């Protein structure tokens, strides 16, 4: 691995946003110190590195903090521009398209997934599901445009959008399992290119390194759900 020039990643293993940064670092072959934090009791390091949002991930490069997952991913790509692969193309239009879909994933896909699986009412959840599948259909179209569905959003090799969506995979899988509704997010019938992409992506060495294990994620989600239920039960007694 290339010397990462004093890189520290403050995060939690289960966060899809932290996973995105790990993916970028892995794909670029950069070594870093992983600092796992407790979000229920935020440390001085986290609070001083991200005073605005107090969230993970935070990347420290030579002690200087960078926050917001996709801002960090762009930073990694630019600060280590000599290290391949390039996550963003050098062509302005391709860069604009990649940035557009990465922003879309955060604006539309993440929010609708959360609503679909954690909505307060059946109506909420159903609206969330509808929006989630619209978002996935749009991403299916984007994938077709970028490589005719044969490769990645970045073309023949992974890029910015692959990192953005790829970071979500274990989290989405756990949400799917926990919902118990039988809804399949990456449905090979509805969005065949995306379904194939998830398989292809998971096979990459960088992905194997960075993505948390599916079973561990489900276990973690179960524990959190049990904890939340215990809190409710205690307050009702």
């Amino acid at each position: 691995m290339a010397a990462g020039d004093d890189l520290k990643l403050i995060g939690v293993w289960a966060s899809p946003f932290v996973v995105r940064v790990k993916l970028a670092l892995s794909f670029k072959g950069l070594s870093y110190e992983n600092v796992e934090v407790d979000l229920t009791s935020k440390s001085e390091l986290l609070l001083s590195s991200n005073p605005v949002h107090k969230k993970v991930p935070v990347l420290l490069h030579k002690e200087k903090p960078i926050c917001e997952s996709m801002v960090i991913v762009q930073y990694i790509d630019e600060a280590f521009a000599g290290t391949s692969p390039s996550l963003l193309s050098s062509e302005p239009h391709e860069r604009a398209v990649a940035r557009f879909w990465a922003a879309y994933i955060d604006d539309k896909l993440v929010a609708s997934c959360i609503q679909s699986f954690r909505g307060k009412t059946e109506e909420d959840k159903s609206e969330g599901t509808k929006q989630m599948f619209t978002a996935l259909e749009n991403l299916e179209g984007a994938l077709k445009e970028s490589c005719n569905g044969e490769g990645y959003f970045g073309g023949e090799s992974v890029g910015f959008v692959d990192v953005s969506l790829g970071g979500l995979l274990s989290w989405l899988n756990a949400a799917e399992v926990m919902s118990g509704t039988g809804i399949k997010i990456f449905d090979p019938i509805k969005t065949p290119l995306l379904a194939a992409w998830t398989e292809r992506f998971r096979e990459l060495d960088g992905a194997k390194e960075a993505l948390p294990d599916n079973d561990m994620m489900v276990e973690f989600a179960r524990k959190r759900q049990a904890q939340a239920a215990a809190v409710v039960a205690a307050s009702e007694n």
Partner: protein
Amino acid sequence: MAGEGDLKLLGLLVSPFVVRVRMALHMKGVSYEYIEQDVIDKGELLLKYNPVYKKVPVLIHNGVPLCESQIIVQYIDEVWPGTNGSSILPADPYDRATARFWAAYVDDKLFPAWLGILKAKTQEERAEKVKETLAVVELLEAALAQCSNGKPFFAGDSIGFLDLVVGCNLLWFEALRRLFGVTFVAAGKTPLLAAWAERFGGTEAAREVVPDADKAVEFAKKLMASLCSAPVANAS
């Protein structure tokens, strides 16, 4: 004038997102055809070129559409890099990350807060949104101190990405002052921002592009009427 190919911009004169794109184009000395859109009753052109969000601005370069203002501004900066003077994003990766961080913060937190003032259905809701907006502005005062490092603008000696992203909201701060009597940037509370706002307004790009706040007030009244809010008494 830079060779630009065929360039069209679908916009709304008072939209802060459109203002920042037009200022970026002005900074690069690039000419384009501007096409004002009706954002309440959306036309064919807008729906065709931005089917995903159906919003302005949309930059159409040689027939190819680009959407999302921050993405468009970065595109403009990359296609027409120009001399150091008209560089919009800073050169250093860490400075770029800092600019992008604050730009994301402004669009995620500042815009919805002040838009919420317009859309509020009750006095309580309005007061809450005013409070939210003021809290964000306070943080931006600190951001300005950090980013400018004593220089006149967020980007340093001349305006850059973050100046455009923050600055395009100023005309709406003035519009909200005229509509509701609230002040967001004042020398007493946010001295750095107040001084910066004067300088921003005085730049050539701002003078060319930013419409009078009266136009924003006019649009706000139309918007509020379409949302069926109670009519607003003018604050004098």
